[in-house]
């Protein structure tokens, strides 16, 4: 640290602070140094001194630095997050609470959120990802919901990078380790490999829960004098200042931060879940907040701030795992499986009995006050006395300069197509870990516990879980369809289109199961927002996401921002992950992606006239040339909406057997994927008047692998009715052909492509890469 960084700054009013200048200088110098080490800037330190009218001590500074961290304050993104559409007639709770809540009828609500645990998972993959799952589950059950499903969105570096297999294996074991033990099915997600994540993987976990609509719990503290109660696991020295670490760039020395990674215990998580839900079935919980990022600090500050009140806590009463913990350590610890709640006065014993039954700690550690201040006692001394409002209201909000860089270069298939046969390309695709089956991961997750899973991992574009208790004589019940999606290479090329595409593809995933897209949670993963191009990626993709969400009426009800995903100055691909949920009224109507024999495959959303498929920015380009150029495929929101409405009609009238959205890799890989399960064959029709003689190689490749948007393949036994419905709904269509039992995909006069062979590559690729026997 340079000496001039610590110079007395005239911006602080020393008169106001009522200390003499010399003493002030000494104090300020040492505490400014501490503040800088905690990740605060000099300007933020000065602001804090002026707001609290003193030079804050180490505990107080720690509390400020946690609350002002990017992770807690969203200081770089807040300005733009506010522009997102968050309202809708079905929205019960938008962003700002532990999770978003939507109404699904029958006095039931779905509570859901996605959250990142990127940096900890890179440093310690098992614990990092496990606590990511634990944390997001607590966000959901804090609101009174029983979690019913888990999903994830994972991004790893190149499969050849020396760390990738270690990280993949650790992260998958961690996700399974927590979800399997706590007994919530992990039903879906996405996994992608790209060298931009070599030094900074992404682990985003999404949880979905079910609550009674009139039994949602919120975090705003109420009633001066009401007891503040700590429940769950004991506080230890793990994860201290984790939120601050999560808000900084990575360097070679980041591994030294291993002690700031939290350690999860899914067993305690399970006990806490059951105890909290049992307590919430009584009427004694007034407000509740889980201790996630920044632990006791953010939970107490947020509860008091939302209630417009103050809070007094006696830190000597906090159950600790280790001896002689300081007030700083207790307030900044990110030990897992803990909750803070405000109870009705006099009900402590009733609550305590429940927690004792589940062998959990229970301690009344303070009370709600009307002082507007956070006052903490430790060892009979005041360890902290600061106003609460500045911690939240004065958290900095930056309007960072940005530049949205949009690649408008349209690359034609002629420029991109390579001189290889269709079979060679398909083989290359399914031997690529981005395209190949992720069965190796999924089978490590318990996807059927809770016995409500209808569709999970790989059998459908989105996962479907039945809503427990909605069955009737008429129907097996309602279902909730869920997906996570993002195509980072599109976002990199054009943040606005990329943002729109993530929403549209998620919606297509949902309708491909027969459900109606309902609402969104998002996880915005980007590099350093202090760089104008990165800030442009953030602003652009928020614009794109917002535009598509408004158009499709899928408001954003919760989310998380993860910035500074850089290592030694190199950013990850911009990765704004969309987690979408949708509703299906009768779960027996939901469909997967596996075709049956003697079905007609119809491509919806595209007519026969296309002769230059969009290979720019495609997986084809990435796999065949290791290079990405050109703009991503354009999005037509009007067409997307028509396609969604058509799909809803077709599935509601049981007109289709299965459906598969066209995404990475385009048409031909999607057809293959529909044929794999039953090892079917098909004679694929080529567009009218096209023979290979007058269709150049690049046109065939463009047609087979182009990533034009707004398309879904359906398998049907009623092709005439599907075609009629498509015409009535003004959706283009193209009949691809009928499935058969030959197991061969025939394309004009090319040699037959063996679905069995391609399916084997699809299944074997990841196990082989992970050095596992078949």
């Amino acid at each position, binding site marked *: 640290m340079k000496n001039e960084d610590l110079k007395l700054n005239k911006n602080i009013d020393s008169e106001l602070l009522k200390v003499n200048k010399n003493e002030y200088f000494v104090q300020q110098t040492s505490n400014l140094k501490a503040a800088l080490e905690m990740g605060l800037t000099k300007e933020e330190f000065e602001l804090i001194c002026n707001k609290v009218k003193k030079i804050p001590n180490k505990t107080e500074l720690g509390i400020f630095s946690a609350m002002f961290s990017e992770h807690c304050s969203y200081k770089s993104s807040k300005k733009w997050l506010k522009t997102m559409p968050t309202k809708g007639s079905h929205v019960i709770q938008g962003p700002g609470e532990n999770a978003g809540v939507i109404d699904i009828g029958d006095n039931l609500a779905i509570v859901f959120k996605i959250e990142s645990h990127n940096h900890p998972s890179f440093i310690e993959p098992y614990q990092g990802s496990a606590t990511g799952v634990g944390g997001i589950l607590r966000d959901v059950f804090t609101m009174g919901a029983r979690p019913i499903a888990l999903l994830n969105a994972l991004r790893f570096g190149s499969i050849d990078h020396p760390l990738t297999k270690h990280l993949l294996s650790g992260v998958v074991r961690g996700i399974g380790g927590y979800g399997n*033990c706590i007994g919530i099915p992990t039903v879906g997600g996405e996994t992608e490999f790209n060298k931009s994540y070599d030094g900074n993987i992404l682990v985003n976990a999404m949880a979905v829960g079910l609550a009674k609509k009139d039994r949602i719990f919120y975090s705003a503290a109420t009633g001066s004098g009401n007891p503040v109660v700590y429940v769950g696991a004991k506080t230890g020295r793990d994860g201290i200042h984790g939120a601050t670490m999560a808000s900084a760039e990575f360097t070679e020395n980041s591994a030294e931060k291993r002690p700031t990674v939290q350690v999860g215990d899914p*067993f305690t998580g399970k006990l806490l879940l059951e105890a909290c839900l049992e307590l919430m079935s009584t009427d004694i919980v007034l407000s509740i907040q889980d201790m996630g990022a920044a632990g006791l600090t953010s939970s107490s500050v947020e509860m008091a701030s939302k209630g417009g009140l103050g809070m007094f806590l006696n830190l000597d009463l906090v159950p600790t795992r280790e001896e002689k913990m300081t007030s700083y350590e207790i307030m900044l610890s990110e030990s897992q499986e803990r909750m803070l709640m405000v109870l009705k006065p006099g009900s402590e014993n009733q609550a305590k009995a429940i927690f004792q039954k589940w062998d959990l700690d229970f301690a009344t550690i303070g009370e709600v006050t009307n002082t507007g201040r956070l006052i903490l006692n430790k060892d009979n001394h005041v360890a902290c006395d600061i106003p609460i409002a500045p911690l939240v209201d004065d958290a900095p909000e930056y309007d960072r300069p940005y530049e949205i860089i949009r690649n408008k270069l349209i690359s034609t298939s002629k420029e991109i197509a390579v001189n290889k046969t269709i079979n060679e390309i398909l083989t290359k695709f399914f031997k690529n870990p981005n395209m190949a089956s992720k069965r190796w991961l999924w*089978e490590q997750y318990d996807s059927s516990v809770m016995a409500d899973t209808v569709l999970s991992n790989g059998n459908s574009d989105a996962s479907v879980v*039945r809503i427990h208790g909605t069955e009737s004589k008429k129907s097996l019940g309602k279902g909730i369809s869920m997906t996570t999606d993002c195509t980072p290479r599109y976002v990199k090329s054009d943040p606005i289109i990329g943002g729109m595409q993530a929403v549209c593809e998620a919606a297509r995933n949902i309708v491909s199961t027969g459900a109606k897209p309902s609402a969104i949670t998002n996880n915005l993963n980007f590099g350093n927002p202090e760089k104008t191009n990165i800030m442009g990626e953030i602003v652009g993709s928020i614009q794109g996401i917002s535009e598509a969400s408004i158009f499709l009426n899928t408001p954003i009800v919760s989310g998380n921002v993860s910035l500074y995903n850089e290592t030694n100055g190199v950013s990850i691909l911009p990765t704004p992950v969309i987690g979408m949920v949708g509703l299906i009224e009768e779960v*027996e109507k939901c469909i997967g992606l596996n075709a049956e024999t003697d079905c007609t495959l119809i491509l919806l959303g595209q007519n026969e006239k296309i002769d230059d498929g969009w290979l720019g920015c495609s997986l084809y380009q990435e796999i065949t040339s290791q290079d990405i150029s050109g703009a991503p495929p354009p999005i037509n929101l009007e067409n997307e909406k028509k396609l969604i409405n058509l799909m809803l009609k077709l599935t509601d009238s049981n007109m289709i057997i299965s459906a598969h959205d066209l995404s990475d890799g385009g048409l031909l890989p999607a057809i293959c994927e529909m044929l794999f399960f039953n090892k079917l064959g098909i004679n694929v029709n080529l567009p009218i008047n096209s023979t290979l003689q007058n269709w150049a190689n690049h046109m065939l490749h463009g047609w087979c692998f182009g990533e034009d948007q707004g398309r879904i393949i359906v398998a049907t036994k009623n092709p005439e009715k599907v075609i009629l419905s498509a015409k009535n709904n003004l959706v283009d269509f193209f009949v691809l052909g009928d499935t058969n039992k030959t197991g061969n995909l025939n394309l004009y006069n090319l040699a037959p492509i063996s679905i069995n062979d391609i399916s084997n590559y699809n299944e074997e690729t990841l196990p082989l890469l992970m050095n596992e026997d078949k």
Partner: protein
Amino acid sequence: MRTAVTIFPGSNCDRDMIIALKKITGKTPIKLWHKETEVPNLDLIVIPGGFSFGDYLRCGALAARSPIIKSIKNHISRGGAVLGVCNGFQILIEAKLLPGSLIKNKKLLFTCKKTLLEIQNTLPSPFCSGFKVGTTLEIPVAHNEGNFFASKEMVEKLEGEGRIAFKYKQIKNNKNSFNPNGSLNDIAGILSKNGRVLGMMPHPERVINKFQGGIDGLKFLSTSIEHLVG
């Protein structure tokens, strides 16, 4: 038909099993908390799956030392039937109510997938005797420690006494489904000497409705319960 489901801290398939039993018997099973020492007269106690006591020490080891186990032993000595599924099977072994041990899966990874079970037992038992030997049932597994291991003599004894309830078979066209954990002789479930205690790794309670991908679990449980009554 009086049934009960035990609940330990960390059990997580208790709700699913309760729903399955209610669907078959029409009556909600009694919940038995792990600390209970007295249990009423029951026809069947089910120890469901989960991670009792977080799988700490060894899977099932702490649960096997809970107060409820003594009551379960009394129930068995009165001729009562017990079904242990997954963690329940691990607990029965740790409580020495069934022989052998369940060690980590061969690949050292948790595994959740569909498996095909073939009925094997010739020893009369309410659980499997309703099916002809060779009948197959498609029921999923989800576990980390389901690899049945025992001495050669013990395995031979189990085979000889007709106490192997099911073995894993391969689902057609799905190599991946066969013996998911490396169990000796592909063993998926075993019976006690008197045939009235069954431990099995697969989860029948997860396949009782068509939307779950099959109803073989319902078939298995309802046939067992019919024979318990009969």
